[in-house]
């Protein structure tokens, strides 16, 4: 079992190095897919192991797998598989450059490391590494816009994550003055060294603020719409679907460590503020959005805001709902981003003001997008419906009634905005009827593999109903976070 804890990271690194070498050029096309598949398989194996009561460790305890890590690794794998498999360019397209598959593999490896590391410092390093791996992926198209997005992304994300480092440093100082310097949460959780609350307050606040940047929470979200809209579709899917969640995972871990020391008040206040601000920003900027991919990016900010509120609420229900939300959102968002890439490829634009009647003209592309949007809007049978309902109930339960009220109102505005743009793009006819010209025949092609999308969306639709082991891993993972506090 311990092997599976190392495998994802090691394999991704090998792949990154290997695909750079000419002999393995043929593998390049599938590098991301293979890496994701390995991560997914390892994740599932680890989930089984964890359910079995084991706690696999590796590399001298630097990597340690509890229920939460195993779940997050599965999320990374499944979302990664959706994004990379679904994002496979048609063979006739331009050949990928050598760096692209290597960077994707590095990116996936860094995320795996982030969720598997038992050390918050290593987690930080891994998250910063994702910035490095994705910087050139964002700027991949080398256009002015992608260059601009890359610059903003690197500067804003690095600066933000640097703040998290400051927080981690202070946390380390606190443990040092407590007598047992460590950044490992298994030790922090097991030994509960006497930490100074006032110092941990600063540390936790800074760490959360820093990781919030990477998680796309307002007011640190500014890089997100630019980077997500300019990156190639599969990368957008990965970033939006899972990178944000990995950063959110870091916030959860920090919260779990600091919570017993300083109580929930401060972090709850910060997360509520960030959550509501994110929802507000997403609402305000969705109303008059003009670009499909940016619209999806703001939808990610919305969902991260909701997750922040779930973290603020705490408790088994809220946290297991948050984790279910992470998975559902990841699958649906990566699918929609992948399809938005196909829309860009076929229509030549992602402007919501220019594309019309897509469902009529290109049902093969429009239908999966529409289904994905339905999922993202939180409608049943998709799991996001359950997680949103549970988060609101848990929030009210924890005394955040007004916060939840404001949140759902903002979500309503976002719903209306997203529906408005989606309807405008999808429905109707491009040309007014009666022009005399015969309507062009509908293009039923999917313009890419449809299986990953169908599987991802199907899974999203079903996991809300999945009682049994899936339900157990969710509650176990929530329990890891000390959900009973």
């Amino acid at each position, binding site marked *: 079992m311990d092997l599976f804890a190392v495998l994802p990271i090691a394999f991704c690194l090998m792949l990154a190095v290997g695909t750079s070498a000419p002999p393995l050029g043929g593998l390049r096309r599938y590098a991301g897919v293979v890496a994701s598949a390995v991560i997914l398989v390892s994740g599932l194996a680890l989930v089984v192991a964890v359910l079995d009561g084991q706690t696999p460790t590796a590399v001298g305890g*630097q990597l340690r797998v509890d229920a939460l890590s195993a779940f997050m690794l599965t999320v990374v794998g499944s979302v990664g598989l959706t994004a990379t498999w679904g994002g496979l360019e048609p063979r006739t397209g331009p050949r990928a450059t050598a760096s692209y598959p290597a960077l994707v593999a590095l990116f996936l490896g860094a995320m795996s490391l982030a969720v598997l590391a038992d*050390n918050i*410092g*290593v987690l*930080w*390093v891994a998250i*910063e*590494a994702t*910035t*490095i791996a994705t*910087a*050139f992926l964002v*700027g991949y198209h*080398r256009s*002015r*816009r992608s*260059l*601009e*997005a*890359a*610059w*903003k992304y*690197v*500067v804003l994300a*690095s*600066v933000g994550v*640097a*703040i998290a*480092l*400051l927080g*981690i*440093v*202070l946390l*380390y*100082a606190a443990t*040092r*003055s407590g007598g047992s*310097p460590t*950044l490992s949460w298994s030790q922090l959780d097991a030994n509960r060294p006497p930490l*100074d609350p*006032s*110092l941990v*307050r*600063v540390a936790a606040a800074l760490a959360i603020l820093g990781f919030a940047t990477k998680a796309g929470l307002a007011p640190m979200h500014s890089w997100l*719409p*630019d980077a997500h*809209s*300019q990156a190639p579709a599969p990368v957008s899917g990965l970033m939006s679907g899972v990178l944000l969640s990995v950063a959110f995972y870091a916030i959860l871990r920090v919260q779990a460590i600091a919570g017993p020391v300083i109580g929930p008040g401060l972090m709850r206040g910060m997360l509520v503020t960030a959550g509501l601000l994110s929802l507000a920003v997403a609402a305000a*900027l969705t109303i*008059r*959005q*003009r*670009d499909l991919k*940016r619209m999806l990016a703001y939808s990610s900010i919305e969902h991260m805001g909701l997750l922040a509120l779930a973290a603020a609420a705490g408790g088994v229900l809220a946290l297991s709902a948050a984790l279910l939300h992470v998975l559902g959102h990841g699958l649906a968002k990566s699918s929609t981003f992948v399809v938005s890439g196909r829309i860009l490829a076929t229509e030549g634009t992602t402007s919501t003001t220019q594309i019309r009647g897509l469902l009529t003209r290109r049902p093969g592309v429009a239908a999966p997008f529409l289904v994905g949007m339905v999922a993202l809007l939180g409608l049943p049978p998709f799991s996001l419906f359950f997680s949103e309902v549970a988060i609101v109930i848990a929030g009210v339960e924890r005394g955040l009634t007004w916060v939840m009220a404001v949140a759902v109102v903002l979500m309503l505005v976002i719903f209306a905005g997203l529906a408005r743009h989606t309807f405008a793009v999808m429905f109707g006819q491009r040309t007014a009827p009666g022009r005399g010209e015969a309507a062009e025949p509908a293009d039923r092609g999917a313009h890419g593999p449809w299986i990953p999308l169908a599987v991802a969306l199907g899974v999203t639709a079903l996991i809300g109903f999945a009682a049994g082991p899936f339900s157990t891993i969710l509650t176990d993972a929530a329990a890891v976070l000390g959900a009973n506090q």
Partner: protein
Amino acid sequence: MSDSLYAQLVGLSGGVLLLSAVLIVWRRSISAEVRLLAVQGGALAGLVTVLGVNEGSTELLVVAGLVLTLKVVVLPGLLFRAVARHGASLREETPLINTTTSLIALSLLTMLAFLVSRPLLVLGDDPAIAAVPIGIALVLYGFLVLATRRHAFSQLIGFLVLDNGIGTVAFLTAGGIPLVVELGASLDLLLVVLILQVLTARIRSEFGDADLDDLTELRD
């Protein structure tokens, strides 16, 4: 090393750190700022050495060497080369707020730094702890430079000042962080700077110069 010498040395390196940061804000010539950055890196390395000697920790001395290499030689060197390629007389012509205001802002930020480091004083009355506000101040200065300077290089420099500040806090409060993390963080920093440099070059070739105000095509 005697306590007073230790305190004086810590104070000295702290002062150099702070002064170099103030000068970075004050100066407009980018190459001068890079030089000051090297000085700052040196001061940081010096601080780590002092701490290491004081604690008798070899690990810290190794880290001091690492800091010296990275922050005095490698990073300034990289920047210097890049600046030279752009022409030696590169200047930050029109920052978003003028130098006078920036300097007044610095004093405010310094006070803020002292104010907010209050909770950190619980770590003891070691001279190193007393110097922690300097680190926080550096972080804030770096942020100020990032938020107000138009030139891409200026932002890079601001980022490095910010990073030096975090380093300062780390060494002063905890005598650094675990080596694995330290190595990883340094590598990350190096890579970020490299990436930003590559991007700067691309921006220059794409936009004509490296004025970040041109980068406003992505909005809403």
